[in-house]
């Protein structure tokens, strides 16, 4: 026992002394001193293939590696697109049915042609797929079985190469999107727009199937999409049907990032697939970083791309700075070449407690705030404003908050005979319920104030969202003395009575109104939330029945319209009102689209739908705003949703972490951030000095305990062997 204790502590000391002056660092001494960002991820990224990946935690990695043609300006608000791998914004020309150029405002526009001019200084990060033999052939085009056998990671292939990005690479990415076997999540969204994509997808899917059966490699270069033309090495032309200004936003997503054919063919080698080495695990990009280590079960490591092109930290004019509410500190690096950080280490942290404690110890540079840590980190002022707690301030931590371009709502199934429908009575029932749902209370109790009560489907920061009196939902709120006030319960009860349910009792049947709320909230932690939901309906005398179910059944019921009430949410794909208003467009009703639609409330108002079709392709003009206002007015009156809330994100950052600005649309933000490793190292040393005294006390106690046991044993032994033949000391 003593030996085991002693050797354990010896080992412990050896490791500690050899490693660092602090004992509890999860990183090596060398790494801590370097210009490295320490961050975490809570669920392992499943896909890193840009054709397939459509998940925030995957894009947090992927967007540092791949570069689509456009990006969001890091600092400007409202969100502004700017060229990333292009020399300028795409040149758009509008064509009529016969392909003749027409004015953009013409009603004869049948096609929009986007011409993309590529920068000439963009190169791929070094990768074995580009390595070539002296005769020009690909070095690893066909890896022999002997090499494959000994191969564990791509780092085992020593030779690397690179080349310039060409327009063909962007076309190649779109061709990959068309292959059904690659499961692109946006293929069916793009098919109605990109000319020739439907036919191409059918053709190439059949080719891919055939090639797979014959175990042949699928090289997409000989195949072409009618609407995607490579004009020359640096120019790509994409023709889409009609007008679709939102297409530019899609061009800022990783789906449109270039894919080199060499990499696609390289990864199709059977032996590599068997070793989990594929484009899905080992990306090849042109971004500021490349993936140096991919262990989704433990750690992901990004390193600076040595061939990254020139790019500078953004500068803003005074007017832009004021519009965005940007501090001077965030502009200190304006005009400086990017990136600032050499390496980023992302560690898997499934539990919030270790993550939070490591952040407090200085081993993570930033952290969100979990429910458990909220009271420790944040103080709510008497006015409801949020501020940092004293403990956080003393550590030099700052709080960054931003309302997300997202909405969480409770939907009425408009196809339901009780809560749905468009008669005056049915509308009044929904309005009454909407007033009774106290969103402010919900945000305070269940979100620790991390949300803003929604006034309509469009969140702040998106064109069409308005603040102040103009922006309130007059069905639920009044504007009183410069602030919005929820209508009284008396108003809700009056509306309910007018709907035919005075006091919650049906005037026709004399029975209490009973409504059904479907949810996946089945855990014990959700009980309080469900009690709160029941209470909101009970205020009107309505009985709410909770139907808890698993996620699959819940989705199925929503798809088939077999629900009455349910909660749902939406995150913006891009900062355009169309991306929210289409959730209420009749053409997207889920029961009419075999479950593929996005309008899960099955809301269908012909006037709303007509206006939606108009604003869909409009630019952000006062005319568009007026139409959106009209749509919001219709939707608020019809009340297909209880508008819920827009979530607010809170991030804590240490004093050494600079240039952190919340940008909900941009994912490639690592290149703008800066670390002061020296300050971090000093703070880590200061905050993590090992407490030696408890260790010494424990060792002393163990030694004394063993001594006491030994003496007690000796005593009992001596008692047994007493020559007097009696028990007791001889």
């Amino acid at each position: 026992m003593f030996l085991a204790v002693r050797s354990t502590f010896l080992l412990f000391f050896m490791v500690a002394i050899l490693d660092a002056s602090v004992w509890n660092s999860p990183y090596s001494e060398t790494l801590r001193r370097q210009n490295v960002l320490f961050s975490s991820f809570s669920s392992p990224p499943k896909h890193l293939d840009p054709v397939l990946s459509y998940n925030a935690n995957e894009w947090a990695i992927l967007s540092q590696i791949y570069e689509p043609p456009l990006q969001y300006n890091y600092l400007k608000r409202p969100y502004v697109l700017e060229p990333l791998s292009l020399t300028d914004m795409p040149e758009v020309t509008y064509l009529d049915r016969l392909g003749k150029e027409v004015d953009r405002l013409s009603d004869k526009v049948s096609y929009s042609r986007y011409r993309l001019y590529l920068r000439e200084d963009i190169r791929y990060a070094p990768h074995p797929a580009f390595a070539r033999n002296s005769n020009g052939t690909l070095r690893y085009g066909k890896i022999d079985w002997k090499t494959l056998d000994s191969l564990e990671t791509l780092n085992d292939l020593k030779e690397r190469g690179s080349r310039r990005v060409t327009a063909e690479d962007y076309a190649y990415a779109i061709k990959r999107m068309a292959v059904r076997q690659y499961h692109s999540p946006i293929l069916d969204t793009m098919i109605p727009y990109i000319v020739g994509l439907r036919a191409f997808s059918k053709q190439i899917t059949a080719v891919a199937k055939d090639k797979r059966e014959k175990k042949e490699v699928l090289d997409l270069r000989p195949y072409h999409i009618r609407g995607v033309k490579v004009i020359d090495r640096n120019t790509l032309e994409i023709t889409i049907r009609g007008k679709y200004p939102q297409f530019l936003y899609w061009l800022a997503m990783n789906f449109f990032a270039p894919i080199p054919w060499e990499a696609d063919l390289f990864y199709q080698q059977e032996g590599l697939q068997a070793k989990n080495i594929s484009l899905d695990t080992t990306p090849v990009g042109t971004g500021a970083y490349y993936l140096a280590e991919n262990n989704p079960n433990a750690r992901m490591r990004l390193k600076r791309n040595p061939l990254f092109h020139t790019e500078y930290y953004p500068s803003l004019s005074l007017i832009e700075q004021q519009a965005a509410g940007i501090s001077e500190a965030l502009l200190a690096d304006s005009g400086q070449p990017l990136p600032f950080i050499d390496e980023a280490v992302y560690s898997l942290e499934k539990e919030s407690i270790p993550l939070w404690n490591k952040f407090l110890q200085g081993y993570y540079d930033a952290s969100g705030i979990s429910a458990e840590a909220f009271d420790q980190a944040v103080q709510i002022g008497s006015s409801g404003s949020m501020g940092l707690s004293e403990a956080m301030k003393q550590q030099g931590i700052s709080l960054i908050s931003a309302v997300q371009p997202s909405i969480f709502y409770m939907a009425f199934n408009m196809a339901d005979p009780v809560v749905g429908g468009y008669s005056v009575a049915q509308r009044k029932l929904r309005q009454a319920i909407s007033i009774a749902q106290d969103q402010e209370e919900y945000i305070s109790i269940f979100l620790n104030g991390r949300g803003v009560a929604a006034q309509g489907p469009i969140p702040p920061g998106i064109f069409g969202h308005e603040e102040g009196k103009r922006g309130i939902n007059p069905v639920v709120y009044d504007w009183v003395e410069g602030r919005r006030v929820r209508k009284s319960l008396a108003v809700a009860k009056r509306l309910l009575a007018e709907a035919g349910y005075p006091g919650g009792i049906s005037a026709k049947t004399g029975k209490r109104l009973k409504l059904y709320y479907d949810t996946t909230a089945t855990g014990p932690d959700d009980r309080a939330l469900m009690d709160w939901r029941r209470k909101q309906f009970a205020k009107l005398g309505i009985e709410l029945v909770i139907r808890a179910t698993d996620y699959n059944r819940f989705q199925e019921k929503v798809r088939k319209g077999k629900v009455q009430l349910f909660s749902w949410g939406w995150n913006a794909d891009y900062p355009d009102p169309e991306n929210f208003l289409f959730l209420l467009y009749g053409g997207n009703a889920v029961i009419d689209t075999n479950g593929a639609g996005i309008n899960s409330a099955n809301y269908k108002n012909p006037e709303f739908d007509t206006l939606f079709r108009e604003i869909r392709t409009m630019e952000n003009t006062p005319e568009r705003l007026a139409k959106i206002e009209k749509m919001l007015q219709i939707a608020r009156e019809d009340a297909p949703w209880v508008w819920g809330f827009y979530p607010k994100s809170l991030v804590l950052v240490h004093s050494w972490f600079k240039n952190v600005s919340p940008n909900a649309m941009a994912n490639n933000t690592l290149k703008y951030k800066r670390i002061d490793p020296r300050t971090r190292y000093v703070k880590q040393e200061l905050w993590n000095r090992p407490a030696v005294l408890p260790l010494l006390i424990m060792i002393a106690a163990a030694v004394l305990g063993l001594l006491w046991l030994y003496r007690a044993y000796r005593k009992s032994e001596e008692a047994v062997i007493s020559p007097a033949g009696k028990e007791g000391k001889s």
Partner: protein
Amino acid sequence: MFAYIIRRVLYAIPILIGVNLITFMLFFMLNSPDDMARAQLGAKQTTPAMITAWKAEKGYDKPLFYNEKALGIEKVTDTLFVQESLKLFAFDFGRSDANRDIGREIRERMGPSLSIALPTFLIALVTNISLALLLVLFRGSMLDLSMMVAAVMIMSVSGLFYIILGQVLFSKLWHWVPISGYAHGWEGVKFILLPVFIGVFAGLGSGVRWYRAIFLEQINQDYVRTARAKGLSEIRVLFTHVLRNGMLPILTGVVVIIPSLFMGSLIMESFFGIPGLGSYTIDAINAQDFAIVKAMVFLGSVLYIVGLILTDISYTLFDPRVTL
């Protein structure tokens, strides 16, 4: 003994088929292939075309147990159950629905799981037996009584509490070890100290009580009295005679769990950021990744059967009266 092992291996085949059948039925009762496609594709708008393509790609377009469209024996063989089960028996786990090689993933995760489970198991075994013998040595004393009370107290507290307490005490307050993380080789020692210590401590109560009970059964046997009469020291009596004769029940409980050490611990690995197998099955169930679920259930069953066979074999080593 060889014939016995062969017989047990043959018995294992219908057991594994049964386990596999139940896994298939339970999984597909809760998740249809369409649900699985939606979960895997993760798109905001999953169209029927996407679902059809995914099912065809992964082989989930086949019927589960009976293929009406097929001819002859293929009515049974050209089904999801037979196609997938046959591969399992060849230990070909295939690829996960997220397209990763499952066998490779298991091999990669097994190491980290073992790096925690094996030291915890060995240290706990030695500590528990030593402490139990110590209590038997001082049986009836205040030490014995107070240790038994402490053992009950240790048993009564959730393992999660020890994890959080350990992290707060040893990492947050005293700054001795990293709160979580993992590294390979010697660099990784500092990461496993705390989980191993907590694992040993959390199992101390039940382990010590169990082993103490086993040894107390032996302590009044005739052979112990004879040994004492020969003048042997009490320590020698305990460690050479009592321990040896108490090994049979100990082996029953211990050997059977050795193979399952490979499977890791869900909570421990989650809290300490260990990239092991502990959460692999749970994550797969949540992600509706059937390929992983069936592979892990199959592997778990195989390891359990191996554990039982090893237990039987170990009896022959410690008790010459037992023959197989």
